[in-house]
């Protein structure tokens, strides 16, 4: 088994942690032995609610505002998202020629991550010819949060488990705000999805007799988390993408959709794509459209760092909202409890929940355990924030960030030497690259912006409120209520990617290509003008702005 590496051109090993942090680590080491085998009690419902109310970022009123335009008028949204939803189209409707059509397809899939690719594959199974499908995506095919998931995927496939138990965990974790029929679909389809993966050649972690290796995740009542080391998302995405390549599905890379097109009834009939390299636009006419653009982590809501992919900028929400789609639970953002807080180079990157599932627990600067290690994510995140800012028991880094320790050396102590490296190869590599060995030292963590719990409302067939428009994956909402559990996002993109793909294919077989207009965008512009929205504000964002302050202040657009 290979490990991460220390670069040959690096200086001989010096302590990666500054002295102040090292002192705290010594206290963690002193309490480690006695913490093993001892569990902190789970919180009762009152305690959970208290932690959330006081410490979870979703409950900070100043981080949200109500919308003044569109179907969700009056609903509270994070400020960063509200500004994108209430923004003028990046493309002026009067400047595009919709009479020259570049593509005519049965199914247009917007987004080339997990959900989009799964939708395309199942549209083929439903009888659509691959040449009648187009995937339009912003970066490369497979560049998506799907690729980055570490811990695993839930499915109630063991004898002691059942879809019913999975359903209860989903809705309880989501604070009972989920659409129940979506939670049912998620739980019920899960084993079939894993079977499909096995047929595609996905290598799940298994025992010698073929039974699946499973772990608990936060908020699970059964050990239901299936993994492929801590590269679960990558293993799934690359196999699914490979199959799409074998099926010769057309993929337009670096060509995100920037606006939907509709007919006079408001039915979605196509989309405008924008080639980010040549700066040309393409007109696509389609019988059905699957929206699969993923989430909004790169909006850095409330200035949180994020685990998300570069392209996670809410483009699909923006386009669909203008076309009349309803959004659900947008006031609920998932902050993953354990993002890297040190070293600076990797701040915000994910330290998978599988680390806690394998026995590592969060401890404060004195080495004391302060929370059960597997509360649902929002509660766990709230408890970490409380420890740092409510009780001032966090550890400060040289750049002023606070965090608590995730006591990773416990894992090999519990399960035997070599376990960490074998099962958490990504995390091991991530940290050893920067000189920290997680089997020797704990890791400093703090919550990081991870997932869009809500999204475009769908029904259990993946249909949105807009005729002709379907959605799957992180862009849709209702499945997870106010809080998604670990291992249910990989599952979501598979279940609802599949359902959306099948529904889109069925519709395509029964409909003709429609007229292409930007009427819905014109109507939305009027609404924005009435609401007095700043005319400078444009969306979709497409890519986030990370250029240095100095570089930006001197930037001019003269070409």
């Amino acid at each position: 088994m290979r490990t991460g590496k220390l670069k040959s051109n690096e200086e001989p090993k010096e302590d990666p942690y500054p002295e102040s942090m090292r002192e705290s680590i010594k206290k963690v080491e002193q309490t480690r032995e006695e913490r093993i085998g001892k569990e902190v009690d789970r919180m009762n419902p009152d305690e959970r609610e208290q932690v959330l109310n006081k410490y979870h970022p979703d409950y900070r009123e100043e981080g949200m505002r109500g919308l003044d335009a569109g179907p969700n008028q009056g609903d509270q949204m994070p400020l960063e998202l509200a500004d994108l939803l209430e923004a003028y189209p990046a493309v002026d409707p009067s400047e595009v020629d919709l009479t020259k059509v570049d593509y005519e397809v049965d199914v247009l899939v917007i987004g080339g991550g997990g959900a989009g690719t799964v939708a395309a594959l199942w549209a083929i199974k439903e009888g659509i010819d691959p040449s009648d499908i187009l995937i339009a995506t912003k970066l490369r095919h497979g560049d998506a949060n799907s690729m980055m998931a570490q811990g695993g995927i839930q499915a109630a496939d063991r004898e002691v488990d059942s879809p019913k138990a999975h359903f209860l965990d989903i809705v309880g974790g989501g604070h009972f705000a989920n659409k129940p029929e979506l939670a049912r679909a998620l739980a019920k389809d899960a084993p079939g999805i894993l079977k499909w993966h096995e047929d595609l050649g996905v290598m799940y972690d298994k025992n010698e007799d073929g039974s699946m290796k499973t772990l608990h995740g936060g908020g699970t009542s059964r050990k239901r988390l299936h993994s492929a080391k801590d590269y679960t998302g990558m293993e799934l995405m690359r196999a699914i993408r490979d199959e799409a390549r074998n099926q010769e599905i057309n993929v337009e890379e670096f060509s995100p959709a920037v606006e939907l097109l509709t007919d006079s009834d408001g039915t979605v009939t196509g989309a405008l794509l924008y080639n980010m390299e040549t700066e040309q636009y393409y007109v696509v006419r389609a019988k059905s459209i699957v929206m699969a653009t993923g989430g909004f982590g790169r909006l850095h809501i409330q200035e949180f760092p994020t685990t998300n992919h570069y392209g996670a900028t809410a483009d699909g929400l923006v386009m669909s909202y203008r076309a009349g789609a309803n959004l659900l639970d947008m006031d609920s953002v998932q902050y993953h409890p354990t993002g890297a807080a040190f070293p600076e180079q990797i701040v915000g990157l994910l330290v998978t929940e599988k680390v806690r599932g394998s026995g590592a627990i969060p401890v404060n600067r004195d080495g004391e355990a302060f929370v059960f290690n597997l509360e649902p994510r929002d509660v766990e995140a709230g408890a970490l924030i409380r420890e740092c800012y409510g009780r001032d028991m966090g550890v400060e880094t040289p750049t002023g960030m606070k965090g608590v320790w995730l006591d990773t050396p416990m894992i090999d102590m519990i399960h035997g030497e070599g376990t960490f490296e074998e099962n958490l190869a990504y995390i091991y590599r991530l940290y050893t690259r920067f000189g920290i060995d997680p089997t020797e030292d704990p890791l400093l963590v703090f919550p990081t912006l991870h997932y869009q719990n809500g999204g475009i409302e769908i029904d259990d067939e993946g249909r949105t409120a807009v005729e002709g428009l379907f959605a799957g994956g992180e862009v849709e909402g209702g499945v997870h209520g106010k809080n998604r559990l670990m291992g249910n996002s990989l599952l979501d993109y598979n279940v609802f990617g599949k359902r959306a793909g099948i529904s889109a294919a069925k519709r395509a077989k029964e409909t003709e290509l429609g007229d292409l207009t930007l009427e819905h965008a014109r109507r939305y512009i009027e609404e924005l003008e009435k609401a007095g929205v700043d005319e400078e504000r444009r969306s979709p964002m497409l890519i986030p702005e990370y250029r240095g302050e100095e570089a930006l202040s001197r930037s001019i657009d003269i070409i």
Partner: protein
Amino acid sequence: MNEKTEVETVEIFIMGKRYEVPKGLTIMKAMEYSGYQYVRGVGCRGGFCGACATIYRLEGDYKLHTDLACQTTVQDGMYLTQLPFTPAGREQYDLEELEVDNNPLLDLYPELARCVSCNTCSKSCPQDLEVMDFVNEAIRGNIKEVAELSFDCIQCGLCAARCPAEIPHHHVAQLARRIYGRYQAPESEHLEKRVKEIANGQFDDELEELVNLPKEELEERYENREIEE
């Protein structure tokens, strides 16, 4: 920390052009600091997707280094560029129709036999995989070994870009993993069984009951649910 402290900087050369950036940034953030906005050469920013494959040289060092821009800290005197794309031939196949007993790896990628065992592939791998070892296993038709040795591959293509035998290692490895997962990994009986039970509607009634339960009762069921140790 009352006074504004001078930020320590390093000198880097982006495609030969000089910039000064704060010490401690990753290559990716250093290029952004210098004013570049990425469209190509960026993806997950976390070491999973292989989009930011980077080649660099250090002043006074003859070696050509390879790594990921999002996972490598800039050093003084670094001459760097990123690979926007690596052309590498990928063969089409039908997983269900493959003749898996006749070394399909060599069959689809005969260029594997051109390997000269120079080990440049392993040396160029940012994941530090033993790439040459799995190429050798591939030539011998040892699919399981290829699958396991290549498991952490992020498909950045740096090995393929550097290989004098022009082998597309990452595509060979993907094929091996799928063959292993489909045909050689032990089957999961409990999964097969559960899929059948669901298809037979075994859980439909209890799920239907839960879907229609009032919130209060659902809450009660949730709080009292049995939890596996």
